């Protein structure tokens, strides 16, 4: 008798009708949007704040070096002792005081520059000042040696290297960033999905054990069927929740940014990356590059691969979660078994972030995109950079083979574990269960 559809239906409906689930489904996007809004608002606020920096120049070199910007005002003090300048700065509650002493040798100018402030200044502020001073003094030296600085500035030439593969595919820096975002997002999505809904499966297995219904159920259905039904039902509930989050969250985001006039996207780092990569293009070019970048992506490949690796990776992990749930009596006992699951998952994300971005087709990236526990995440991050189809198929094949093996292994543990009460099993005992 095939009860799988019935089990899936029950698992799905109980998850979806659960109050906590409903509350989380509605509340999560709201909380997210509120958080993003607050961060975006604060960032805007921070940008709006104008800092005043006093500059005490005793060297006489710095004329008009410090130009006021949107968020920094420079007040140049003259004819003053350092101690007076300090007092003045504090009284005026300015952010800090830049002091340049009188010096003889311009090459040792570092020894004569100091910045005073109440709090330690940010790295970007100091490096901004440093670069300004460096530029100024370099020009000074050049001028002293009789070089025409204006001529140098005029002669500057800017080069953008256009990239093209031997197959004639054009790429650009914007492309790379877009690929990174797509790869990163899909890998991260899978990671989150596994953690959230894998745990949900585990809890639901434990619930059946603690409510002692399990023996009633498995006198009617095969444990493997129950396990698969649980995994599929919970996943469907998860997908439902995810879709609601996306739609509802998207709507909310649009509404909030329209109503409050805060550009939420502005504060996301991806945007900055794209802008950074595209900084040399003007606005029009930027959008063209963006469009081209998208069209350069192996989109169809990406979508198909996403579906397969997502399902494969998720099922692989969730069968492990189900086995853990079956092996223990309550959630606190799950810790020792969680480690071996979480470790490869985190490893995969780290490899994705640090290695794939640096070298998408290097040895480490390639190897880990074959190893089944890391391959879904790593491969998903690699694919936007163009992975040969045979590699994807091979990796998927390994993944599916491992999944089958894991389901078999998990089902064994599940079958024995669900009827074991009381004692928390050791790994040795789990191995013994497989042999029963």
């Amino acid at each position, binding site marked *: *008798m095939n*009860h799988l559809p*019935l*089990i899936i239906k*029950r698992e799905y409906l*109980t998850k979806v009708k*659960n109050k906590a689930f409903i509350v989380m489904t509605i509340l999560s996007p709201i909380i997210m949007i509120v958080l993003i809004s607050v961060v975006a608002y604060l960032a805007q606020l921070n940008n709006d704040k104008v800092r005043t920096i006093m500059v005490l120049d005793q060297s006489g070199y710095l004329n008009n070096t410090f130009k006021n910007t949107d968020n920094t005002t420079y007040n140049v003090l003259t004819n003053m002792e350092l101690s007076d300048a300090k007092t003045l700065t504090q009284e005026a509650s300015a952010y800090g005081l830049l002091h340049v002493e009188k010096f003889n040798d311009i090459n040792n100018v570092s020894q004569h520059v100091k910045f005073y402030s109440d709090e330690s200044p940010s790295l970007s502020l100091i490096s901004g000042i440093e670069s300004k001073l460096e530029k100024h003094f370099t020009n000074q030296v050049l001028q002293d040696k009789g070089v025409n600085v204006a001529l140098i500035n005029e002669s500057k030439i800017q080069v953008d290297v256009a990239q093209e593969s031997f197959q004639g595919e054009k790429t650009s820096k914007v492309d790379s960033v877009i690929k990174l975002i797509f790869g990163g997002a899909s890998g991260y999505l899978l990671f989150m999905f596994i953690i959230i809904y894998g745990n949900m499966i585990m809890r639901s297995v434990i*619930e*059946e054990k603690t*409510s*002692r*219904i399990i*023996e*009633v*159920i*498995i*006198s*009617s*259905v095969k444990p493997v069927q129950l396990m698969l039904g649980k995994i599929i039902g919970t996943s469907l509930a998860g997908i439902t929740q995810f879709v609601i989050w996306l739609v509802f969250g998207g709507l909310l985001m649009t509404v909030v940014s329209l109503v409050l006039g805060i550009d939420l996207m502005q504060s996301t780092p991806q945007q900055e990356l794209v802008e950074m990569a595209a900084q040399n293009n003007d606005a029009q070019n930027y959008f063209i590059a963006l469009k081209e970048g998208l069209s350069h992506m192996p989109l169809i490949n990406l979508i198909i691969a996403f579906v397969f690796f997502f399902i494969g990776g998720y099922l692989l992990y969730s069968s492990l979660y189900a086995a853990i749930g079956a092996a223990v009596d309550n959630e606190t006992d799950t810790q020792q078994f969680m480690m071996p699951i979480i470790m490869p998952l985190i490893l995969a994300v780290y490899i994705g972030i640090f290695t794939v971005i640096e070298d998408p087709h290097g040895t480490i990236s390639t190897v880990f995109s074959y190893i089944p526990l890391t391959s879904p995440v790593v491969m998903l991050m690699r694919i936007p950079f163009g992975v040969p189809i045979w590699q994807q198929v091979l990796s998927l094949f390994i993944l599916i083979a491992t999944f089958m093996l894991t389901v078999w292994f998990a089902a064994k543990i599940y079958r024995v574990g669900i*009827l074991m*009460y009381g004692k928390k099993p050791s790994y040795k005992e789990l191995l*013994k269960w497989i*042999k*029963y």
Partner: protein
Amino acid sequence: MSNLLEVNNVSKNFGSFTALNNVSLTVPKGSIFGLLGPNGAGKTTLIRIINQITMPDTGTVILDGESLKENHIKDIGYLPEERGLYKSMKVGEQALYLAQLKGLSKAEAKKRLNYWFDRLEIGDWWNKKIQELSKGMAQKVQFVVTVLHNPKLLIFDEPFSGFDPINANLIKDEILHLRENGATVIFSTHRMESVEELCDDIALINKSNKILDGKLTEVKRKFKSNTFEVGLRTLNNEVLEKELAEKFTVNPAYFKTLDNELKLNIKLSETEKPNELLNFLTTKAEVSHFVELIPSVNDIFIQTVKNNN
């Protein structure tokens, strides 16, 4: 075919631990069969094998003439000792789900549930969640779910635990009623008085081995020791006791009477007949009490298990 269930030479090992060692038993059709044994003897393993939850290492199980197969799930109703229901699911939904797992259609399941819920007067619980019910109430729902699909074989593991005497009696009557309608019942319990009351056949399992089985009456016949409990009214108890002790094996007996009578257990040899004893006693005293001691299931259980150990 008068046996509904035949278990033939079933063994089951868990690693180095032997849960069942070459156990065979037969359950006659339409009987109530008591499966007895101390804790950890292997009863639950045997029941799980019959339910196809675990597979035997060796041996076969025949249900109604056929070797046990997946399709038999709908022929068995099992109330496990470790039982429960989904706490946050509504009674009706849950019962429907479990009935459908046993192969009933939704409509049929609903019809039968209405019948049973009315019969046990729990109709108004349909929309309640299990966590709102008391333990006894949940047990009633559990009982209904077990018997709903009209199985040929019902297996009850400690069916009365959690019930008050009134409800326990109600369930007992339902079990008898189901038997009248053709079901065969395997009944596993530590409450010997209910075995005494309900069971036609018993099997006793100890330390993975079956050590005793048969019709309850035959088992009792085998275990009775030809001992009679007598109450005698006489003028001098001590003199009479001495006289009887010379002729028979005599032990003091304990039972409640109105007068201060001489109470004895008198064991006869195999050749002696009860009438001879009675005739002898009437010449010596006024006989107020004369009962053959039939061993209780409790006594048989304790004695057999102790000897076996």
